């Protein structure tokens, strides 16, 4: 009888281990998402429906892309020139392709492009689609000073200085590119180019 009891207990233990190992096996098979760094790239654009994007405009580009580091100091920092040049060169290519005219900022362009980048994510700044709290107006000349966290993000904004009301500059188009800051310089530049091109293929420029 004692032998039978022992046998039953062992079987039960085996059952439990079998079940446990089976669950672990299936848990191990839980499918993964992206395989490559570029699989995590995301392009977000939004625009003011009140602005006429069918017209052509004069615009100015900044010399460098501002690095947003969350420090509230007077001296702005800039991102590496190699990435800055890649971003600004792509913007010029896409804007010129729409027959917009680049002029110097001192010549009062209709649209001033503001480019900034984070080596932190701008999750708080860049809510997912449908998320409330998005606004078109920012105080000061350079909109978009916010804190954030990890990953690499680029923020391009088209502002209209002549439309300023109460020292607030309206933003008529915004583009956020977000991805993992990984890979060689060339790989990152390639992704910047691809994603900025995508931004100009989205509304309102895809009409």
């Amino acid at each position, binding site marked *: 009888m004692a032998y039978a009891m022992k046998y039953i207990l062992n079987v039960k233990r085996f059952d439990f281990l079998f079940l446990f190992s089976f669950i672990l096996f299936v848990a191990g098979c839980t*499918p993964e998402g*992206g395989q490559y760094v570029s699989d*995590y790239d995301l*392009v977000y*654009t939004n625009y003011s429906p009140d602005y006429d994007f069918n017209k052509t405009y004069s615009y100015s580009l900044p010399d460098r892309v501002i690095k947003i580091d969350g420090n509230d100091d007077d001296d702005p920092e800039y991102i590496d020139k190699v990435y800055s040049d890649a971003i600004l060169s792509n913007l010029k290519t896409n804007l010129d392709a729409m027959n917009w005219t680049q002029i110097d900022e001192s010549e009062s362009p209709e649209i001033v492009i503001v480019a900034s980048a984070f080596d932190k994510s701008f999750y708080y700044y860049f809510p997912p*689609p449908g998320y409330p709290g998005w606004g078109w107006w920012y105080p000061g000349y350079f909109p978009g000073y916010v804190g954030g966290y990890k*990953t690499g993000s680029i923020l391009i904004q088209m502002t209209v200085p002549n439309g300023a009301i109460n020292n607030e500059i309206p933003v008529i188009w915004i583009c956020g590119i977000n991805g993992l800051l990984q890979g060689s310089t060339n790989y990152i530049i390639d992704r910047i180019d691809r994603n900025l091109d995508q931004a100009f293929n989205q509304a309102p420029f895809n009409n």
Partner: protein
Amino acid sequence: MKFKFILFVGLLAISTITVAQDKYSLNYIIGFPTGETSEFIGTTSWRGVGFDYTHELNRNWGIGGSISWQTFYEDIGYQTTENGTETVSARRYNYINSLPIHVTGSYFFNSSKKELTPFISLGVGVMYNKQEQDLGLYILSSDAWQFSLRPELGIEYELRYGFGLRGAFRYNYAAKSGGLDGLSHFGLALGVFWDN
């Protein structure tokens, strides 16, 4: 008379204990999305596991419980979607994790071949569903516990006394609740059973 009564009750209790057995089964489950589930994910799930317990009341009837887990996944690819003035482009991956938990009642048919036992079963319970979409580095996720019914049709094949193979086709129905659509699916459960 009193002695006869005690004997009667005692024999009845012993016979019940003798007949009543506990049956366990472990299954690998292939999941087929249906309804709202198939609108979110169209592909078959090859990732599922389940455990069933049945307390046999007599030769035909049993009550018990069932728990299983099914993971649905689909790589939607690079998608551009517009919502008003907003546009988002990213590679998207859709996931649904389902955890049906049911109290079950089963009926085992008598068969001309004694090693084959067809059965039907109905489960009533809840299903935890977690629906998730990954886009870029972002995750949009919602989950809910949903009321669930699970009709099942199956067959057991006894290889030796108290042990055999088991196959069943089941429908895990989930009712819409918690702001989440009812995420139902079919399951083909293949596994083993053993008696204790």
